[in-house]
C-alpha cells in the first residue's frame, strides 16, 4: 500500500513558549511494498516523523495518506501499522508468546487463528523455540526479532521501524539487517526504516530520505543519492571514509586546485565554491591525460587492496583511495584525476549542488 506524506509539519511548543520545528514541511510518497530508509543525524526529527505516521503524535500541519485514505486524524490502532521501537518496548512481564499475542487480543481474531498466527510469525523471525521465555532472558537480537514479530503479527499495512538495530553489535547488526530485508521482501509490507547509520540505510533501503533539522534534503535510491547528492549535507552525510570538501575557485571556466588548472566547467560561473570529491573517486591519471593534478604526497597507507594517500588541496587535508599498484611507496608526488561527473560543486551559501552536465 502506498504511503503519502503531504506537507507534514510538527512544531513542539515548550513550556516557556518557544517553538521547535521538529519536522518541517515533509512531502514524500512511498510506493507500495518498498522499504524506505529515513536517515539523518540525531535529533533531526526521524522518530517524530515515524510517530506521526503511527498516529502517536498529532501533526501540526499536513496530511498523511495510506493509499487513498486520509488517516491524519485516525487513532493509531485503527491505522493498521506495526511499530518497532528504538528500545523494542517489549512488555517485560509477559513471555515472548504473550508479547506477540498481545496485539491480537485487542483485535477480533478467533483464538485458534491467533495462536496459529503467533506461531507462524515466531517461525518467520526465527524465535520459534523461545516462546515461553521472558524478554529479559533473550539476547538483544532475539528481543528485536520479538519486537518485529509483534509488529508483524497484526498483518499491518505499514511497518515502521525506529532504529531497531542501534543496540546490537556490529556482526549481529549486519545479520539482522539482512533478516529485516528478507522478512520485508517475504511479506511485501511497505516499510519505513529509521536510522542514523548511513551505511545501514544504504544497504537496506530501496529508497532513502535524508532529513536535517526536520527538513527533507533528498529522496532517492541509495546509489543515486551517493553518486549525485543534492547538496553538501547529503554528500557529507553519506560515505565512509567521508567525502573531502574544501573551497575552490572557478576561474575562466577552469576549476583551480593548488593553483593548477584541473578541469574545464563551461556551465559554471566564475566564483568561489565548495568542492566535494569522494576519496574512492580519485584515480592515478594516465600519462597523456589532460585533466589531472599533481600533488605532493604527505602520507601513504596501504589498506589491503587499496592505498590511502594524504595530501593537500587548497590548504585542506585530503584523502584519496587509489589502486595499490598505481602508486609506489617511494613516490613523492603523484598525478591524480577524477571523473568529471564525480566532481561535486556546491553553492557556497545554500550548499545546493551545481549542475555541470
Amino acid at each position, binding site marked *: 500500500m502506498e504511503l503519502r506524506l503531504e506537507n507534514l509539519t510538527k512544531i513542539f511548543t515548550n513550556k516557556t513558549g518557544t517553538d521547535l520545528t521538529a519536522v518541517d514541511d515533509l512531502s514524500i510518497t512511498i510506493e507500495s511494498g518498498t522499504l524506505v530508509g529515513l536517515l539523518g543525524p540525531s535529533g533531526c526529527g526521524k522518530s517524530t516523523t515515524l510517530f506521526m505516521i*503511527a498516529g502517536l503524535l498529532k501533526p501540526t500541519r499536513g496530511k498523511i495518506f495510506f493509499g487513498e485514505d486520509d488517516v491524519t486524524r485516525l487513532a493509531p*490502532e485503527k491505522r493498521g501499522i506495526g511499530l518497532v521501537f528504538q528500545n523494542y518496548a517489549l512488555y517485560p512481564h509477559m513471555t515472548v508468546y504473550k508479547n506477540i499475542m498481545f496485539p491480537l487480543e485487542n483485535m477480533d481474531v478467533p483464538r485458534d487463528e491467533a495462536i496459529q498466527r503467533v506461531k507462524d510469525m515466531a517461525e518467520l523471525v526465527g524465535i520459534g523455540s523461545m516462546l515461553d521465555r521472558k524478554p529479559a532472558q533473550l539476547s538483544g537480537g532475539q528481543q528485536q526479532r520479538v519486537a518485529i514479530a509483534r509488529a508483524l503479527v497484526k498483518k499491518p499495512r505499514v511497518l515502521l521501524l525506529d532504529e531497531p538495530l542501534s543496540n546490537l553489535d556490529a556482526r549481529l547488526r549486519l545479520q539482522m539487517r539482512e533478516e529485516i530485508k528478507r522478512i520485508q521482501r517475504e511479506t511485501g509490507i511497505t516499510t519505513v526504516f529509521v536510522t542514523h547509520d548511513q551505511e545501514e540505510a544504504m544497504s537496506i533501503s530501496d529508497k532513502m530520505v535524508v532529513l536535517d533539522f526536520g527538513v527533507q534534503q533528498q529522496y532517492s535510491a541509495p546509489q543515486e543519492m551517493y553518486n549525485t547528492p543534492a547538496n553538501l549535507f547529503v554528500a557529507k552525510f553519506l560515505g565512509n571514509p567521508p567525502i573531502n570538501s574544501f573551497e575552490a575557485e572557478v576561474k575562466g571556466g577552469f576549476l583551480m586546485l593548488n593553483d593548477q588548472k584541473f578541469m574545464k566547467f563551461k556551465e559554471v560561473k566564475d566564483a568561489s565554491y565548495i568542492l566535494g570529491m569522494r576519496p574512492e573517486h580519485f584515480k592515478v591519471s594516465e600519462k597523456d591525460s589532460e585533466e589531472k593534478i599533481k600533488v605532493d604526497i604527505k602520507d601513504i597507507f596501504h589498506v589491503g587492496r587499496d592505498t590511502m594517500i594524504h595530501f593537500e588541496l587548497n590548504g585542506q587535508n585530503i584523502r584519496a583511495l587509489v589502486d595499490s599498484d598505481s602508486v609506489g611507496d617511494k613516490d613523492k608526488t603523484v598525478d591524480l584525476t577524477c571523473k568529471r561527473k564525480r566532481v561535486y560543486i556546491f553553492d557556497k551559501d545554500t550548499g545546493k549542488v551545481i549542475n555541470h552536465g
Partner: protein
Amino acid sequence: MNRELFKKSNNLEKFTFIFDMIAIIAYIVLFLVFFGMLQYPIDPATNEVILEELEFFFPVYEFLGNNITYGQMNLIISILVIFMVVSVPMFVINYKKLRTRTVYEMDSYVASSKFTNAIINLLSLNIVGFVLRIWNMFIVIEFVKGYKPKDFFKSIIPAIKDKYKKITTKKEKIDESDYDDATYTLKKNIRRQNIAYVMRLLLTYFFLVFMALIIIIPFYWMILTSLKDFTGAVSTSPDFFIGLSRMNWINFKVVLEELNFGLYIRNTVTVAVFSTIGTVITTILSAYAFARIEFKGRELLFTILIMTMMIPGELYIITNFITVSKNGLGWVGTDNNSYFLAMIIPFVTNISFIFFLRQNFKQIPESLYKAARVDGCSDFKYLTRVMVPIASPTIFTITILNVFSSWNAYIWPRIITGVGGEEGKQFWLISNALRDTAFVQDNGRVMYNLQIAASTLVTVPLLIVFFAFRKYIMNGIGRSGTKG
C-alpha cells in the same frame, strides 16, 4: 550432564511435596482437634470461665478410647506446633528452590540439603517424605558425581581417608628468603589483608548475633510467658525454659473464646481486608492518573495532595469524627451504628502510597505506553495488563504495609468503638482489646500469662507475614519512609 536425572530429581521432589502437604494438613487438623478438646473450668451459674481455677484444673481427656492426662495433652499439642513450625517453612523454601534452581546449580550441597530435609521428615513422622528424599538424594549424587548408590557407599571410606591424609601431611614450608622483594611484600600484604578480612567477618557476625539476640529474646520471652501458668508467669525467679508438657495451651483457648479475642481478630481482619482493598484500588487509579494522564492542573493537584502529608494525622481525627458521627454521616452515635464503615472508609486512601506508586509508574518507559496504543490497548487495559503487573512488587508492598497499619491502628478504632458502650465493644479491634480487656481474676489479680498470650496471638501473624514477605516490606519502608 544428564538432564534426565535432573528432571527425574525434580519430578520426585514434586511428588514428595504431595506427602509434605498431606503431613502439614494432618498436623493442622490434629492440632485443631486436640486444641478443640481442651477444657477450662466453667462457673455453672454464670457460664463464664473461672480464671482463679485455671492453673489447678487438670481434666483427663479421652481420645479414641485412650485416656490422656493434661500434661500429655500439652505435650501432644506442643509437638504438633513444633512440627508445623518446622515443616511449613521447609515446604515453602523447598518449593521456591525447586522453581528457581537451574540445572547448573545442582551440586553436592543439594544432595546434603536433601539429606537434612529427609532427617527432618523422619523426625516429624513423615516417613514417606523421608524415603522419597533419601531416594532423591541418591539421584542427585548420581547426577553430580556419577555414583550409583552402591559406589557411593564404597566411595565414603576412601574419601575420608583422603581427607585425613590431607590434614595430617604438613605443607612444605618454603624458605622466605627465596622471594625477591616485590614478591615478599606482595605475600605480606596478602596475608595482612586476609587477617583483616577474617577479623572483619568475625566482628560483623558477632555484632549481628548480638543484635539478633536483643531482638529475639523479648519475642522468646513473650511466647514463653504466654505458655506458662499464672504462678510461673508472675514468679520472681522465672524459668528460662519450660518442658513441652508444661506448656499451657489452654491459655490461648481462654483468650480466644472467653476473652473474645476470636471476635476481635475477626473484626480486625475485616477492617484490614476492606481498607486494604480500598487503598490499593484508589492508589492504583490515582497514581496512574498522576503519572500518565495529561490534564490541566495535574501538578498543582498533586502538590496539594503531597502537602497534606505534612499535616499530622492526629489533626484529622476530630474533623473525621464529626464527619462520621451523628452530626455528619451518622455512622456512629445513632440508633443504627455502622462501626465497620466508620473504621474502614476514612482509611481507603493513602497519599504516601500514591506518591510511592506514582514514582514507580513513572519509571515504566513511555514507549511501552506507545506500543500498547499501537496495539490497540485502551488506557484502562494498559493499566491492568501492563502497568499493574510490572509494578506488582510495589503494589504488594503497599498491600502489606497497609495491612500492618490497619492491624496496628489504635486511636481511631478506639474512638469509634468507644461510642455506644457495650455495642461498641463488639467491634473492638485487637489493639483496643489488648489495652482494654480485663485480664483480671475476681480477686483483682491481673492474669499476665493470659495478657501475654493475647499479645502473642496478635503479634505472631504479623511476624509470619513479615518473614514471608520481608523483601517487599524492606523495599517499601526504604522508599516511602515509615508511617505508623
